[in-house]
């Protein structure tokens, strides 16, 4: 078993605590109307952080869905800047700068899985020694893209790790209404590569599973499907009310398996963590988040920014629409003076 060192475990807990408090503050900002809909991280920290700590950010790619980005601190402080730009609805939120090997939020469920397979395939074609890890949820496993991408990955033997974060709920749909299979990991049998189930609240187990999958991929042995079993401790998003469907006793039991509290307790026991460290990490996390939020708000936004980056160069038609927008007319009609958007 590939066990993280004490220093790695401490670093992982820093990232987990950081993600949790930053997610909580972002929730509050949403409630104040300062950011858009967001999906809180609570309950997923050990899985996301444990997985990315088993990767090499210099070579390995991460394709998130939409809940994970806040916990990808290991890939650089630019991730948080991107998260806050995204949350306030700034177009630049989608631009994670090169060479960071992370793709932006993916809202359309499971569509990033075939992207991961194509990217992993592309790495091998370019003799680039990296692997691709793609996050998706139990609900996404019902999409065609999961099966189509899993099948292709198996045939190609692509260096890709499918990480299914089974948090028991797809908004209000429980796992037994999502699949009749005995597990999500079992679905790998149809793809011809290994599927393993791990306790997603156990950061060491996640780290080990991803490390093993990564070594397999790098050795040319192909993909692995990992199902990390967790419990979604918060609502699906800021737009959800889980009290309508999550049984109270179930969430209480899950709170007893809280991944952050669990690693805290373990590291305290080992003398690697204490209340003072916890307070320091939380304060630093909030300072960083506030700074990213302020920076996001002061990021310039041109009137016609929404028209940028659609095509490499504006088509003739888009150029006229841009001219109309900039003329303040909001239409592309040409006035008698020959000017687009003119009322002259």
């Amino acid at each position: 078993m590939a066990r993280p060192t004490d220093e790695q475990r401490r670093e992982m807990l820093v990232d987990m605590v950081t993600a949790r408090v930053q997610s909580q503050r972002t929730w509050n900002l949403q409630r104040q109307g300062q950011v858009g809909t967001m999906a809180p991280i609570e309950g997923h920290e050990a899985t996301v952080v444990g997985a990315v700590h088993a990767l090499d950010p210099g070579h390995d790619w991460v394709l998130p869905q939409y809940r994970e980005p806040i916990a990808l601190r290991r890939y650089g402080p630019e991730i948080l800047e991107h998260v806050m730009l995204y949350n306030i609805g700034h177009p630049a939120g989608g631009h994670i700068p090169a060479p960071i090997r992370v793709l932006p939020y993916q809202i359309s469920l499971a569509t990033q899985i075939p992207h991961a397979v194509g990217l992993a395939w592309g790495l091998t074609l370019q003799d680039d020694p990296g692997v691709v890890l793609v996050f998706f949820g139990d609900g996404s496993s019902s999409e065609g893209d999961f099966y189509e991408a899993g099948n292709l990955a198996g045939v190609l033997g692509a260096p890709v790790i499918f990480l299914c974060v089974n948090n028991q709920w797809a908004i209000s749909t429980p796992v037994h209404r999502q699949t009749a299979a005995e597990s999500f990991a079992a679905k790998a049998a149809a793809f011809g590569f290994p599927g393993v189930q791990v306790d997603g609240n156990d950061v060491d187990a996640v780290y080990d599973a991803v490390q093993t999958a990564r070594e397999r991929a790098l050795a040319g042995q192909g993909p692995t499907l990992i199902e990390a079993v967790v419990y979604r401790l918060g609502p699906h998003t800021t737009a959800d009310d889980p009290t309508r469907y999550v049984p109270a006793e179930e969430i209480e039991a899950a709170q007893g398996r809280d991944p952050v509290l669990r690693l805290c307790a373990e590291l305290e026991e080992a003398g690697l963590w204490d209340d003072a460290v916890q307070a320091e990490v939380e304060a630093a996390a909030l300072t960083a988040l506030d700074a990213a939020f302020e920076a996001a708000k002061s990021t310039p936004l041109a009137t016609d920014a929404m028209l940028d980056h659609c095509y490499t160069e504006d088509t003739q038609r888009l150029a006229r629409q841009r001219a109309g927008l900039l003329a303040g007319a909001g239409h592309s009609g040409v006035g008698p003076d020959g000017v687009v958007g003119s009322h002259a």
Partner: protein
Amino acid sequence: MTELNMLEAINESLHAEMERDDRVVVLGEDVARTGGVFRATEGLFEKFGERRVVDTPLSEGAIVGASVGLAVAGLVPVAELQFLGFAYQAMHQIAGQVARLRYRTQSRFESAITIRAPFGGGVRTPELHSDSLEGQLANVPGLKIVVPATAADAKGLLASSIRDPDPVMFLEPLRGYRGIRGDVPDGEHLVPLGSARTARPGDDVVVIAWSHQVELACRASDHLAEEGLAVRVLDLRSLVPLDLTAIAEAVDSCGRVVVAEESPQTGGFGGEVVATVVEESFWSLEAPVVRVSGFDVPYPVGMVEDRYIPDEDRIAAAVRRVLDVA
């Protein structure tokens, strides 16, 4: 110049682009060992090998979805969909992902993907093998829609599409694969996207068309020439980008306009062309614009498809209609 049919021209262009740029990879169903069900990719596997010419599992969603990942990796995927009607099974990736990769990453990544697919009817295919979806695709910002009508353009537009950093739906007329032949320039031949072509000169009426309808419009124009009518045919060559200048110029010269397309009428790209004519050239019009199109039903089965597809007689009748207005 060498006389080729469209399929040969496409094949030649694929060979040349793979030769020119080793980032180009070809993927799809049956594209490697058998050279494509129409033989468009013939010889590529033998020449460029199994790393660059890849038979995939039967999954349009995975072919297109994986192309996004290949593009992120810095490759230039040229994906083949066996028939455009099968694009429905990849539409979430085409419209939702391929078209948006540059936009949603604010140009961190280019979506330098070309998706080739044959479309259009007239060859007695089973269901969903003949559908014209270009109007649906043109409503997806980010995509370029390229619709060649001649062998020379098939070669030159395909080369430009593969080199274009934006995603291109390269739609090949099924009936033209072997039915359309013509002189094709040897060696490198590039036709820019967004530049319409005058397929027949004339100042009495302009028929605006694309893909196989251009061939039919030219035949109609040739017949009407015997009656002393000068019917211009404007071949759009690409729907996105659309050559607004060429449309305005043709309408200003002719004053009477027919738009011919094979897709259903409602929501078809022909409506966009008519709207463009009205917006840009209203004061040049001497008669109401007439559309010739398929009908607002699913593409029909073999025994009736010849009635569905506009032919040269229907186009000629539309030309007479716009001339009827004094």
